Every structure is written in structure tokens, then in C-alpha cells.
């Protein structure tokens, strides 16, 4: 799984929207799209302890990304279904397309760990993984071992990569960008929040996800390499060892699910990413007339009641 990368992706997607969608796709939808897969699946992955008993998935990796399990929450098919639901409910392309882009970013980024995601579900339940780093959520190790492994492996590099992608598009974090590109796409939500928060507060809210990403990356990395005193193979260490090799770190037992050969994963993921942008582009214009019709009907209903 990826950690802060998912927070940075939200801004990366916002900053790299197709030209005709600039200032028109909901930032909140991108955020919820990127956030939904783990919101649905992750709580039970780590589980919780109550009265000395652990409640949670017995095989976290199977539950998180597999089938049967909540692996469906990390599939493009599921994202498309939710988007259909949003469109059917609100006829709002700003939210439908935003959710689609955020969701796709999450699913495609998660092919990097050793479990990967079921990219072609429901046509295939095989997982697609690049094995860039080891998936490390276990019943015994919980969130701490997972974080330590991620921030000792190429997962840390992945977070840095997305961090620099956002920094490369630093304008996405500015007040001007927020006012001219983000607010116009979601005027009602920002206006509603503006009942309580002034501009400084609203801007902080917008930047909050990026702030959280940066801080969690620094905090977990510091904890894993400076504060923690793990015992690995019977040896007490000052901090978890770094291992920036492929499929690292070596000190975590690597788990896998039935999957396709890694060689076809990257090209397939890139094709799917292009496909998602192509579909979003193609639907964008068509959805406009649907939006207008829905709004016209709503206005008619309001006048008649």
C-alpha cells in the first residue's frame, strides 16, 4: 500500500487536469475518490483490540486486496460503479469525473506493493503487482510494522516522488489557484464552509491534505529510523534498517496473492491510466447536456411546488 502518496496524488491530479476541465472538476471529489478505497478496506486490515482480543482480518492482505475480500474496493470496476451512482444521483460531472480520476490514481498507485490490485476485475481476479516494495500489513505487526516497512523501502521513494510532483506544480497550493480553479468548481461546498471559516481557514482546509501527507511522511520516517528500537532476527537495533532494493525491505516476510507476471503490469497500468483520461475526456462534453437537463428539471420542480 501507499501512504502519503495518496495525499499528494490529490493535488497532482488537480494540477494536471485536461485543459477543458481546468477549474471545473471538484477537488473534494478527487479527494474522496482517492480516499474511498482505503476508507472501505483498511480499518479491518489492522483491526482493533478489545478486552484483550483482536478483531480484524485474519489475512489482512487477502481482505485488503484479494477476492473474496474487500479487494473489489481497489478495482477500477468498483470506481466506475460508484461514478455511475454519483451521476445517476446528482447528474454532476464535476463530482463524477473528479471521483473517477481520484479513484483511478489510488488503484493504479497501489500496484506497486507486493500484493497489487485486481486491475481487470470482474474479468479476472488475478492481482497485478510490480513488487516495488513488500506489503507489510500483518495481524501481529499491525500499523507500526507496516509503516516501518514502507518507510524503509522504495515506498518512501514513492512518497517522495509524488511530493516532488506536487512541488513541481507548486501553484496548485497557492491562494490564487484555490480561488480561481478550485472554488469555482465547488462553489456551494466552499460557500457552506465559509459560514464558519474565513478565507485563511478555507485555504488551510484546502491545503490540509497536503500538510497531513508531508507530516505523516516525516513523522513515520523519523519514528522508524530514529525512535524505534526493533528486534530483528534476535538482534536489537537502533531503528529499522533501510532497504531500498526492489521488493524490500528484507526483514519483512513478503506475502503475495495469485497474480499475473510483473512484466506486463506497468504497460497495462499505463494503458489503463490513459484509458481513464480518455473516457473522462470523452464523457465530459456529453455530461454537460445531462447536467443542464437535470438542473432545468430541478428548477421546474421548484417552481411548481
Amino acid at each position, binding site marked *: 500500500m501507499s501512504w502519503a502518496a495518496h495525499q499528494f496524488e490529490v493535488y497532482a491530479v488537480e494540477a494536471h487536469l485536461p485543459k477543458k476541465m481546468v477549474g471545473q472538476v471538484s477537488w473534494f471529489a478527487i479527494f474522496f475518490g482517492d480516499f474511498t478505497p482505503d476508507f472501505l478496506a483498511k480499518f479491518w486490515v489492522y483491526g482493533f483490540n478489545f478486552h484483550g482480543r483482536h478483531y480484524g482480518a485474519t489475512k489482512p492482505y487477502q481482505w485488503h486486496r484479494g477476492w473474496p475480500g474487500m479487494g473489489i474496493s481497489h478495482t477500477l470496476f468498483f470506481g466506475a460503479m460508484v461514478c455511475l451512482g454519483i451521476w445517476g444521483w446528482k447528474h454532476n*460531472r464535476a463530482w463524477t469525473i473528479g471521483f473517477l480520476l481520484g479513484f483511478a490514481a489510488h488503484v493504479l498507485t497501489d500496484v506497486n506493493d507486493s500484493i497489487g490490485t485486481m486491475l481487470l476485475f470482474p474479468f479476472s481476479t488475478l492481482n497485478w503487482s510490480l513488487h516495488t516494495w513488500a506489503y507489510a500489513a500483518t495481524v501481529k505487526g499491525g500499523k*507500526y510494522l507496516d509503516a516501518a516497512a514502507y518507510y524503509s523501502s522504495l515506498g518512501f521513494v514513492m512518497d517522495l516522488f509524488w511530493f516532488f510532483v506536487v512541488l513541481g506544480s507548486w501553484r496548485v497550493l497557492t491562494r490564487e489557484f484555490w480561488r*480561481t480553479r478550485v472554488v*469555482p*468548481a465547488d*462553489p456551494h461546498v466552499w*460557500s*457552506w464552509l465559509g459560514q464558519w471559516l474565513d478565507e485563511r481557514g478555507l485555504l488551510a482546509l484546502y491545503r490540509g491534505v497536503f*500538510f497531513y501527507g508531508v507530516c*505523516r511522511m516525516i513523522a513515520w520516517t523519523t519514528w522508524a529510523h530514529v525512535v524505534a528500537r526493533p528486534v530483528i532476527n534476535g538482534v536489537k537495533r537502533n531503528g529499522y534498517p533501510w532497504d531500498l532494493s526492489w521488493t524490500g525491505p528484507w526483514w519483512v516476510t513478503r506475502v503475495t496473492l495469485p497474480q499475473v507476471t510483473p512484466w506486463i503490469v506497468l504497460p497495462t497500468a499505463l494503458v489503463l491510466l490513459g484509458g481513464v483520461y480518455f473516457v473522462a475526456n470523452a464523457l465530459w462534453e456529453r455530461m454537460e447536456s445531462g447536467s443542464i437537463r437535470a438542473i432545468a428539471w430541478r428548477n421546474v420542480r421548484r417552481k411548481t411546488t
Partner: protein
Amino acid sequence: MSEPSRPAPPPASGAPSNSGTPSTPGPSLPAASTPSRSAKYVDFFLYASAAVTYIALSIYNKWLLDWIVGPFWLVAWVWGLPTLVKLVRRQPIRPRRGPARDPARDTE
């Protein structure tokens, strides 16, 4: 800590052809402001101190590293502290509102 105010608020231009969001009558945000140099320094200090405190505390209190707590921390620090100061000074804290205007004219 106070920012010089601009006369009008931002757009609320959620035109149907734009986002698909119905927007009549147009919603409005709190009044916009162009931060002065000193306000920018204050903002920088607030963001930096929010990051330092959050990271320092969360290293030892992992429950703070949560997707709700993180953004909330920033808002509480960057918006809450100045608001607290205003409260102490008995200044109004409710956001001001005004007529809509073209967002493209807003500059830093």
C-alpha cells in the same frame, strides 16, 4: 494578524455549464483579502509552527497521524489561533460576505 480587506468576495460561479452544479442564487464566500507582507509572514509562521508541533507530537502519539486529525490540526492552528486572538481582543470573528465578482481578477 489582521489582513487588509478587499471590497468584494470571490466568485461562486458554479454555472451549470461549468460544473453541473446548480447555483442559483449564487453562493458566496467570506470576503477575499490580499495578504500584506506582514500577513504573509504571519501565515508562514502559522503553517511552519503547525507542522513542527504536529510532527513532534505525532512521533510519540501515533493516533494523531490520522486523516481527520491532520487537516483539522492545520485548520485549528492556522485559523483557530488568529481567531482566538480576535476573540481575546473582542473583535468580530464571523466571516464577512459581499457581492460576487470575477475570480480571475483576484491576484495574490
